[in-house]
């Protein structure tokens, strides 16, 4: 893994012809050109919306799901198993599945919503500029839930029962007990779940690639699909520039995760 990373950095410092042929070193020239790309602001803001929304919604939902799956009730194991399914299905398959479900003419989603009278007519979920990002984010949340919930479940399992009992004896309402006792103790699990999710969601390629594949331009791309398109699909066809995007990506996540860990004081949480 070290060698490919070196190749990535070296590639970002050179110019390549459309065929992929090395045409000499350009220093930081590719990075300078990247800053001049018209689509860059759109792609960056798409990426921010994509990562923040998915991670935030996933965490909130997963906190609830973990609480539910941590409680005892008949059939709990079966429910836990079903939650595994989106994780066990590969992202590429789930993405294709949602392309099928969202289809304008034949998709079951439009069929159901129109049939129930929720919508007056079908919506082109993946073609309409106003809905495509939300449609992709919904899939992103859906596939992130299992992993996150399991990490939080593990976190809940570390909290001894007597802590809850103590809170109850003190007469705290369930919500207050949750906020003042459970949440702080869940901090390490939340931390891990957030950091890993930020990375996975940022680097997620199949969902945006598959669901956005028939839309022209870069209007709904995130950094990672932007990179692929620069290298192989757009009029730019430039692997040097794409490698520069790849390096910037790693740097961005590194900074984002480091900043996040710093603000939440993860060393304290670790102790």
């Amino acid at each position, binding site marked *: *893994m070290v*060698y*490919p*990373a070196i*190749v*990535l950095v070296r590639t970002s410092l050179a110019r390549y012809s459309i065929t992929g042929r090395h045409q000499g070193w350009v220093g930081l020239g590719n990075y300078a050109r990247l800053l001049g790309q018209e689509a860059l602001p759109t792609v960056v803001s798409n990426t921010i919306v994509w990562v923040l929304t998915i991670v935030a919604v996933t965490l909130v939902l997963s906190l609830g*799901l973990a609480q*539910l799956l941590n409680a*005892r*009730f*008949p059939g709990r194991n079966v*429910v836990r*198993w*079903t*939650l*595994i*399914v*989106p*994780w*066990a*299905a*590969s992202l*590429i*398959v789930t993405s*294709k*599945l*949602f392309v*099928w*479900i969202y289809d304008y*003419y*034949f998709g*079951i989603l*439009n*069929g159901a919503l129109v*049939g129930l009278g929720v919508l007056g007519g079908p919506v082109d979920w993946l073609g309409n500029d106003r809905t495509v990002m939300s449609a992709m984010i919904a899939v992103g949340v*859906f596939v992130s*839930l299992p992993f996150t919930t*399991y*990490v939080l*479940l*593990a976190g809940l*399992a*570390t909290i001894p029962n007597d802590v809850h009992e103590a809170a109850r004896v003190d007469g705290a309402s369930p919500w207050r007990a949750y906020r003042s006792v459970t949440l702080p103790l869940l901090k*390490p*699990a939340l931390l*891990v779940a957030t950091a890993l999710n930020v*990375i996975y969601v*940022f*680097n997620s*390629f*199949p969902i945006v690639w598959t669901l956005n594949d028939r839309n022209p331009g870069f209007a709904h791309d995130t950094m990672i699909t932007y*990179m692929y398109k620069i290298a192989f699909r757009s009029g730019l066809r430039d692997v040097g520039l794409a*490698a520069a995007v*790849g390096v910037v*990506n790693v740097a961005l996540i*590194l900074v984002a*995760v480091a900043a996040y860990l710093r603000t939440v004081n*993860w*060393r304290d949480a*670790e102790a």
Partner: protein
Amino acid sequence: MAEPHVARRRALTVAGVLLSVSVLAPYLVMLLTALKPDAELRITPPRLFPVSWRVTNFLDVVSDPEFRAWLRSSLVVASASTAIVLLAATPAAYYTARHRFPGRAAFLFLVLVTQMFAPTTLVVGLYREFFELSLVNTYTALILTNAAFNLAFAIWILRAFFASIPRELEEAAAVDGCGRVRTLCSIVLPLARPALVTATIFAFIAAWNEYIVALTLMTDPDKRPLTVGITTYVTAYVQHWNHLFAASVIAIVPVVLLFALIERHLVTGLTAGGVK
């Protein structure tokens, strides 16, 4: 006291059922589409259930020699890379757990960094690396790549679990005359089963679902794993959604079964290993 308790359990069960249904709903669409004949795939208004049920779609897929090749490829790659991860991660994790080490803070960060390099950014370098080793289009290349991507995460999970096993147990074994390796095998590993299971699951699923590296390294149609292979059921020229989904269902089932068998250990493993 009894009444609210029962009501609570009932509410929880209802919530659980709702959760299951909403998680499974898309995959139910998948299953039902897999059971439709070609003529029913594209009708308006769309129907959830097939009019005539086509179980033979599954037989078509299973008897497709290409599908079998993909399945074999996925099984070989996922199993072998998982085995390598466990073989390499266990001693590494044990060593770092029992020796002074810069601390888990730094280590966690290292794990995170290895996860930050998206495979998409590394494919060219990987291709070059394996080309020089004459390993393009071999299972070996995919096995090694998947093992490398998942190794750090496994070490991290295992290390923390090993650290939580009291040293006294091992010292007692040492007094009994057991060697280091025997102690590891007969005392530590059985205790660490939950962590081993967790690491197995993570490594297996990650390898089973890997797409972009396989797409680049495995150009031979017969060596492609399932993730890459089954997408050829729906391409520019052919649109066999029912076969795509039948193949997908077949690909999901073994993983879910594996999960269901050892799910109990998963939470324990994550608890001690990852997040305490």
